[in-house]
């Protein structure tokens, strides 16, 4: 069995393969519309606002403080994974995700995602770089919430896309080198597939730079077929995590499974069919390290 969240919300499958987590009924039950309206209207403020007297400003410093740092970490993890009734959308309680390879992202968009589906500007790239890039695919109740916010929506509201378009778009983003990720907001309601990049993505930032579990690694890790690899090195440029590299003496690429996120993006640059994903659970050193 996979991670804790699959046990809780996967109904025997991976959490993001359980159709119930995408349903409008679940959204209603969780009052997701109110939560998401509040969360998204205030999105860029999430790090600025004080939460229980402390904001995320210079979080790195605060986390290193003796005692306070440990309390803060514990509190932050509790918020990120909160399933309590009175979750606070302004601090994104109960909002976390997991990296998925392209195949699974397509299954989600093709079969599970609730309509309407939209593709809007990525808010992480907007707030971190001032770049408006259309690569965030949202669905269900969240689409109707984001459509009201002009800063995330292309002019003349052309945000809505069909299921087929969504599958094409995620493939384009993935080939471009972006990492696909699926999001609970709030857990267990699923309504977004993102195409993230380092270090712009807030979720990846909090996980990679501060060790908070805002986003989990995928259910897979990459493996190199030593016979097929031609040591061209193209895959190395693609990896956002520095998990794959060329070893000159061996004349091939190797993957560090402790570092690999299993996003599958490196595969797009291999023209020798030398790269394939394996289930994380089959690799002892990577097992359980989501």
């Amino acid at each position, binding site marked *: 069995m996979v991670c804790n969240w699959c046990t809780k919300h996967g109904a025997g499958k991976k959490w993001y393969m359980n159709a119930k987590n995408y349903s409008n009924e679940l959204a209603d039950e969780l009052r997701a519309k109110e939560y998401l309206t509040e969360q998204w*209207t*205030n999105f*860029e*403020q999430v*790090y*600025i*606002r004080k939460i229980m007297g402390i904001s*995320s*400003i*210079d*979080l*790195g*410093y605060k986390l*290193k*403080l*003796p005692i306070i740092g440990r309390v803060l970490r514990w509190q932050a993890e509790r918020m990120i994974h909160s399933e309590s009734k009175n979750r606070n959308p302004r601090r994104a309680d109960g909002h976390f995700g997991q990296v998925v390879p392209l195949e699974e992202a397509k299954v989600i968009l093709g079969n599970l995602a609730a309509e309407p589906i939209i593709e809007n500007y990525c808010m992480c790239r*907007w*707030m*971190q*770089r*001032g*770049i408006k890039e259309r690569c965030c695919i949202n669905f269900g109740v969240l689409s109707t919430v984001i459509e*009201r*916010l*002009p*800063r995330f929506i292309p002019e003349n509201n052309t945000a809505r896309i069909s299921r087929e378009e969504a599958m094409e778009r995620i493939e384009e983003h993935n080939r471009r080198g972006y990492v696909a990720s699926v999001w609970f907001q709030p857990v267990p309601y699923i309504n977004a597939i993102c195409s993230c990049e380092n*270090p*712009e993505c807030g979720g990846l*930032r909090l996980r990679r*730079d501060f060790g908070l579990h805002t986003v989990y690694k995928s259910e897979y890790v990459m493996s190199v077929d030593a016979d097929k690899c031609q040591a061209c090195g193209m895959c190395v440029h693609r990896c956002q995590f520095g998990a794959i590299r060329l070893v000159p003496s061996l004349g091939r690429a190797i993957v560090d499974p402790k570092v690999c996120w299993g996003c599958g993006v490196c595969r797009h640059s291999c023209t020798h069919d030398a790269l394939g994903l394996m289930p994380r659970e089959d690799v002892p050193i990577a097992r359980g390290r989501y």
Partner: protein
Amino acid sequence: MLGLPEKIRIEIDYEKCGEKGKIDPRECCRCLRVCDPAVFIMHETVGLEQDPIDPQYWRITPVWNSLCTKCMKCVEVCPEGAIRVW
């Protein structure tokens, strides 16, 4: 001080860039883009009366200070000299 981590200080002069300044950060974004570790965040100014759906007043706040390399590129690139790092 003993036991305390090093603190990197970054300050924006909001008289120069932000709702009171001559620059709307959304029109500039130079500091956001020049910084390798993406230390800055752009957000609507909090505490001002403004339309929450389509806010018009924005600011830059340094948020991920601990990741700053003190390369000073933001200081050099800012057309208003609004940034200080020390």
